[in-house]
């Protein structure tokens, strides 16, 4: 009983944050289109359920990359780093996996998509590790280097796509389709998440990626909470001085934690783009991948807890998919983006504000306590 109470208490800030986010979105709907605001709210809250099992599948599909970027940001948080570079790591990972997915067709069967995914993960890892190396050996603030690497990654990838014959679909100004063998398998999910239109099976885009993401979240959870490595990383994150004192190699911890964070974002990129022709492609445009930034919201909302992150990502995907259906109520696409963005970031930032307030009061209390203790 006590345990349930404690658990409820621990997730209540997230729930309150979500409610305030939804409320903020509702206000925008009231302003932009008051007549439909209430039914619009219902549509958003129904999310994927607006269009049956296919819609639910879409939610899972959208959730896949942001579970991983959420883990990426959350993992770095736990070790005291702010990984704002998930976006760059994601796109670099995506490019590597697309390259393998298109060109390495000599790989047999399932090996092809697995290698493609791993290469994407590896590329993201390198990109994240750069941030860690700069921080560890040159004391460069990770936020600054990560933001720069976001842009270097985005422009670099655009350049590589355009200068490649095999990867560039010049008509659509995007990457070409990966080989069918490089697509993440459906793993039977297409038999669950579809709508029947007459005899035609309208299948959702969901694939085994969601399963991989959930498994990775569990692995990260175990890594953080059960291993000596996780213990060291968390000690560094909570108090780097105490971890120095305990003999933890702080530089190694910083580099490895950023490498793992990068790998997670890189894998997000791989899982997003290793999809059959109907799936996503990298568009050659000057936009940072939003999934990277959504990862920050996911991590905040999930309280940086790997399992919490799964649910936070599902929620955000749910709202995002639900928002798509708002067009039927004559909301403009841009307004929908604002509403969805508002819900996501309002949720995340109300949590952030709460944490800041909590920390401030705790500090004050600690100060009072120290005065009392006469330290």
């Amino acid at each position, binding site marked *: 009983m006590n345990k349930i109470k404690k658990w409820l208490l621990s997730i209540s800030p997230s729930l309150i944050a979500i409610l305030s986010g939804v409320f903020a979105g509702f206000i925008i709907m009231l302003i932009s289109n008051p007549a439909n605001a209430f039914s619009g709210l219902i549509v958003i809250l129904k999310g994927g359920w607006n269009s049956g099992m296919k819609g639910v599948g879409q939610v899972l599909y959208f959730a896949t990359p942001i579970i991983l970027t959420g883990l990426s940001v959350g993992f770095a948080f736990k070790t005291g780093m702010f990984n704002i570079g998930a976006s760059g790591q994601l796109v670099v990972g995506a490019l590597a996996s697309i390259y393998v997915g298109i060109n390495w067709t000599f790989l047999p069967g399932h090996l092809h998509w697995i290698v493609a995914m791993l290469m994407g993960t590896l590329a993201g890892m390198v990109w994240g590790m750069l941030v860690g190396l700069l921080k560890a050996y040159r004391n460069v603030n990770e936020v600054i280097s990560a933001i720069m690497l976001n842009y270097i990654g985005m422009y670099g990838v655009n350049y590589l796509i355009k200068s490649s014959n095999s990867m560039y679909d010049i008509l659509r100004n995007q990457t070409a389709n990966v080989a069918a063998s490089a697509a993440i398998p459906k793993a039977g999910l297409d038999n669950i998440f579809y709508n029947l239109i007459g005899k035609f099976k309208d299948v959702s885009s969901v694939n085994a990626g969601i399963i991989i993401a959930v498994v990775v979240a569990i692995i990260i959870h175990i890594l953080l909470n*059960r*291993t*000596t*490595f996780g*213990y060291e990383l*968390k*000690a560094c994150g*909570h*108090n780097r*001085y*105490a*971890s*120095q*004192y*305990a*003999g*933890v*190699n702080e530089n190694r911890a910083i580099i490895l934690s950023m490498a793992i964070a990068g790998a997670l974002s890189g894998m997000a990129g791989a899982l997003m783009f290793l999809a059959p022709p109907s799936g996503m492609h990298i568009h050659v445009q000057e936009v940072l991948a939003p999934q990277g930034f959504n990862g920050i919201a996911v991590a905040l909302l999930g309280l940086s807890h790997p399992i919490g992150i799964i649910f936070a990502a599902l929620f955000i995907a749910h709202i995002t998919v639900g928002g798509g259906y708002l067009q039927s109520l004559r909301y403009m696409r841009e307004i929908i983006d604002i509403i969805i963005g508002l819900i996501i970031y309002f949720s995340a930032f109300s949590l952030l504000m709460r944490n800041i307030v909590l920390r401030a009061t*705790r500090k004050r*209390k*600690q100060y*009072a*306590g120290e*005065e*009392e*203790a*006469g*330290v």
Partner: protein
Amino acid sequence: MGEYIIEMLNITKDFPGIRANDNISLQLKKGEIHALLGENGAGKSTLMSILFGLYKPDAGRILKNGKEVNINDPNDANRLGIGMVHQHFKLVHNFTVLENIILGVETTERGVLKMGAARDKVVELSERYGLKVEPDLLISDITVGMQQRVEILKMLYRDNEILIFDEPTAVLTPQEIEELMLVMRGMADEGKSILFITHKLEEIKKVADRCTVLRKGKMVATVPVATTTVEEMAEMMVGRKMRFTIDKDEVSLGKPVLSVDNLCVKGAHEKNAVNNVSFDVHEGEIVCIVGIDGNGQSELAYAIAGLMDVASGSIKFMGEDISRATVRTRNDLGLAHIPEDRYKYGLVLDFDLQQNLALKNYYAPELQNRGFINYPAVREQADMLIEKFDIRSAQGADTMARSMSGGNQQKAIIAREINADPKLLIAVQPTRGLDVGAMMYIHEQLLQQRKEGKAILLISLELDEVFQLSDRILVIYEGNIVAQLAAKDATPQLLGLYMAGSKGESA
């Protein structure tokens, strides 16, 4: 009434989970020195914070000259003539002495500072009360003793009549303490009323007229100092009879464990924080480094523990050179360290107790298996240490370190370090901020370690502690060891002279 300048009547103040002040009354006579005695956590600081306007009491009244007053913030307190010298000085380091004194009450003419009149007043005050200061020196360039005099002058400059001193002697040498006592007496004779917070009984005996004793948030009594013995006051403070000394067995010296040779450590500025320091610590010996805070003893400890780089010289541990070894290597060789700052180095405040107790051995074979931490074993170790070292906390091994009391946090650190069965224990101010009970306990533990043949390097600012524990005393002054004495040959006066740098240059 007339007799009392300030009365705090039936003050009660609650903090979450703790009643810091429970129906406390304190009456301060005009022109007296009134000591406020109590262990840490007894509620002294809370009571003074209420008087100074930092906290609002939940119940009770404050009267000045018999009239009820409301003190909402330090400005109110200031207007009522209440001034406070905080334990940690509130000075602007890159301002001069004079600028610090007038800060907040500057005299201006059409927006332009008029320093002349202010300087005259400061000079006059410093002569009248014997508070020697150099008005034009920067705070960062003057001694701690002079900084304290600046704080006192700040109060006098504001014509405060009620002066609160919060543990003023903690940072001073014996000679400076003597001087401060004279100054306080002088101020009281001039009609100032002084509240003197301390837990040092001799000082009360020496200077105070009356003494109010607090224990665990409650008021025990207000007694006239002249007719009360030190032992009686001590008993009121801790609630039971106390032993003041602990027995120290004779232990024969073993081989040297730590040999420091011509060690230099870079400081924040060009000067070396530790300069050409050499000494040995043997098995079964407590070597104590004394000095006024900030003379290089912290850096020395950090360098030996591996948390600061060695600029030159060597540190040998059991004959092995560890000057460049990692912290982990040193720990594994058998070096334990009770750090000066338990919040910064000693604990991960957001870990629970069991994880903190495993901070030094989570990677040892008994606590992990192929990289996976064996949490049942971690808990078992924690429960064992909690039992053995009497670490008290709300939820045992699951308690967050942050929510534990200072004394128990320190006990946890000591438990962890002793549990490692070290060959050398570096203890830096191991009893800072602890109550008398916890202090005695820690002293006993250190002596027990000595008896077991461990080498102990103790760095302390408390001379009582030094005399109680050490076999050999080294005095550090501006990074140099200026004296090396057997404990039995040392007196507080002698150490004070060395600590102030006014005697000896050879080691």
